[in-house]
């Protein structure tokens, strides 16, 4: 039975790769990346063999603890767990619980994270190959440690399965996950500084950890090598007990989960609140605008990019604080203008087949394009204005304001116009409605890249006048260029906006059914 489950996992993996060569490419890239990491870590562990015992023990215990912690935390926040061996799918088969647990646990090791963790953990045997006994202890510790990782991940996913199945939790966790991702730079820098400031603290911390289930399995080899077999025996007890407790918790959670399928319903709510649909003009374009705006706030695939915007100044300000030079904040307004304007270039792809409603109701392409563009403009314009004014207020550089505004508004209006054309004609691979924004989208990666890069090139060419004027202002220091930029950028941008919306609308009228057929491929 265990072998059956493992074979099933392998078959699923192989069939998944067979679906498209791009899957294989993605897997290969992830594999190469993991291989690089694994090679580095294995090398480091082998070299640690000749390092002082204390240092090696500290590094191994801290690294191992981080691995266990990662296996426990990542599945929850990423909400992109590998559910190919979802226990719920075995409900109708009468599989004995013990064999199912063993099969699922070993199945969890198949895949890049599992293999990488196992390889690195096993190379701690090399670190402690000072003799037969330490190596043996390290081996036992590595096996226990890897099993703890896998079982902990299973406990966490099973415990949160019903939670994770609820739409609200998925939406919120997806957006919340955006925050540390965007702030990665400052966070890593902060931790690095903290660590280098507290080198004296680490060995003590590792010693404490080695008595907890997080560090205990990883400390066995080191303790035996240091000639403290009694301590090692106690820690072996700790890790075996922890693993047993986790396995027991998993078993009871699983037993309960198998007979209580996740209930994803939410309370019933009476109507009467039309939201933006009741506020904006009762025209087709107004309705599209209201619907798009509602989606910007309710659909995590959209609101994920909204969360990024307020974090951008934080990241840039952090970089500024490192060097004491805050001029990099000047790119804030044009960059956010670009991000927001370009975000509607995949609008129809995000709709997926819900776009059929627009087609069935015979809404004119012009109204469709205009509504979507205005929805984006409704919050993009204030954001860009605030960022531009804020930068001038911060640096006191009011002479540069017109030029910066000209460039930013030019990018915003031009980008919206161009995005209206692009999304009327080309579809790109995006996460499906209801999926996490981090989930790998189905579909043609090649076309996505071509559309995105092609669009970006065209946009760069279209905003060249504003860029040129800004450069001229910076080089000559003549404020007149700024005012020309403000006028030209706004006027040119608006002209391109109108042209883009009209052209996109015309294309949509002509090719709506073809567009629906394109998005129907991925559903």
């Amino acid at each position, binding site marked *: 039975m265990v072998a059956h489950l493992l074979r099933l996992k392998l078959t699923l993996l192989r069939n998944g790769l067979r679906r498209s060569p791009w899957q294989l490419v993605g897997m290969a890239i992830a594999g190469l990346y993991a291989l690089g990491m694994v090679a580095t870590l294995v090398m480091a562990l082998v070299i640690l063999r000749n390092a002082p015992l204390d240092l090696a023990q500290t590094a191994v215990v801290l690294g191992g603890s981080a691995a266990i912690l990662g296996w426990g935390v990542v599945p929850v926040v990423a909400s992109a767990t590998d559910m190919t061996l979802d226990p719920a799918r075995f409900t109708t088969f009468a599989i004995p619980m013990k064999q199912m647990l063993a099969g699922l646990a070993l199945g969890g090791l198949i895949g890049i994270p599992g293999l990488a963790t196992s390889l690195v953990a096993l190379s701690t045997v090399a670190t402690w190959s000072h003799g037969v006994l330490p190596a043996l202890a390290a081996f036992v510790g590595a096996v226990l440690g890897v099993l703890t990782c896998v079982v902990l991940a299973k406990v966490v996913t099973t415990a949160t399965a019903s939670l994770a199945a609820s739409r609200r939790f998925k939406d919120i966790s997806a957006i919340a996950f955006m925050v540390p991702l965007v702030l990665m730079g400052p966070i890593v820098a902060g931790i690095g500084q903290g660590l280098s400031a507290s080198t004296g603290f680490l060995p003590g911390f590792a010693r404490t950890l080695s008595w907890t289930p997080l560090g205990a399995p990883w400390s066995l080899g080191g303790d035996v090598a240091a000639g403290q077999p009694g301590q090692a025996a106690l820690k072996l007890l700790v890790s075996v007990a922890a693993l047993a407790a986790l396995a027991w918790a998993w078993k009871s959670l699983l037993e309960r989960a198998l007979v209580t399928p996740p209930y994803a319903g939410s309370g019933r709510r009476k109507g009467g609140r039309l939201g933006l649909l009741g506020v904006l003009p009762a025209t087709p374009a107004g309705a599209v605008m209201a619907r798009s705006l509602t989606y910007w706030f309710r659909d995590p695939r959209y609101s994920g990019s909204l969360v990024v915007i307020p974090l951008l100044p934080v990241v840039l300000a952090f970089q500024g604080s490192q060097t004491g030079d805050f001029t990099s904040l000047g790119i804030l307004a044009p960059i956010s203008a670009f991000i927001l304007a370009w975000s509607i270039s995949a609008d129809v792809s995000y709709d997926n087949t819900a776009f059929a*409603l627009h087609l069935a109701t015979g809404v004119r392409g012009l109204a469709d394009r205009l509504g979507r563009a205005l929805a984006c403009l409704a919050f993009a314009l204030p954001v860009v204005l605030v960022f531009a004014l804020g930068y001038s207020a911060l640096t006191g550089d009011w002479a540069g304001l017109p030029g910066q505004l000209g460039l930013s508004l030019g990018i915003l209006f031009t980008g919206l116009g161009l995005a209206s054309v692009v999304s009327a004609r080309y579809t790109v691979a995006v996460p499906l409605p209801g999926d996490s924004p981090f989930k790998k989208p189905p579909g043609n990666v090649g076309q996505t890249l071509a559309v995105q890069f092609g669009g970006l090139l065209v946009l760069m060419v279209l905003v060249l006048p504003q860029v040129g004027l800004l450069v001229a202002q910076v080089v000559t220091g003549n404020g007149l260029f700024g005012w020309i930029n403000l006028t030209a950028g706004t006027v040119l941008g608006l002209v391109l906006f109108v042209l883009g919306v009209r052209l996109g609308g015309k294309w949509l009228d002509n090719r709506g059914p*073809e567009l629906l057929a394109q998005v129907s491929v991925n559903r």
Partner: protein
Amino acid sequence: MTAPQPDPALQPDQAPQREPAPQPDHALHSVPALHPGVAPQVPALSIRGLAKRFGGKIAVDGISLDVPAGSFYGIVGPNGAGKTTTLSMATGLLRPDFGTAAVHGVDVWQRPLDAKRLMGILPDGVRLFDRLTGEQLITYAGLLRGMDRETVATRVADLLAAMDLQEDAGTLVVDYSAGMTKKIALASALIHAPRLLVLDEPFEAVDPVSAANIRSILDSYVASGGTVIVSSHVMDLVQRMCDHVAVVANGRLLAAGTVDEVRAGASLEDRFVQLVGGRSHTEGLEWLRTF
């Protein structure tokens, strides 16, 4: 925003080639003339030689059909017969490779916006804008049709009551059950009071009480002169509900006419199985009785 639009006629290079459609060579019945007793008039839906190929597979192989105005028309066929593809091409959602479709004389592919004004469509297997509440979704459909706010509000309230969805009007459609989703999609197709309703699998996953409510709505709609086309593979339902029926299999039209004409004395289900074939009479699964 309200600038005059060029006539949304097809661009020459995108128009489907209007070559003579391949004729179904073993259709049992040719397209019947208008049913006796119905005054000669423009059919509610008239399709001629519709054909569609997906890659190497011919999904629809030259279907011609007239749906008389004021009829309750059922389209039946086994899974994968081409019902959904045919209806998509007839309603302007999928461009046919060959053939034409006209709603009350308005060509769907030459004057799509005019034709769509006459039609209410419930497509099968497409998503909805499910991050809207049920109430918002119907309102959205109405506003997209260019209706004014007051009319939309009145009709939304009526439709929610008729579909028994008042208690869930403020719930997001993504949290609806399958049957509720079907009902809300049907309500969005009804809001502009179309002359022709094209419903693809309207009763799938709908509970019996709601199905009965929907049927009585559709019955009175037909009685007042509207035309309904439903696709289904539940023969019983079609026999009880519809006055006309067309049998489709393998992308071809096998029979069409009034329900009585098509079933020719037998039950529609028996006649269907006879037409479509494929019933297995083997004495298989003996072991299933060995428990």
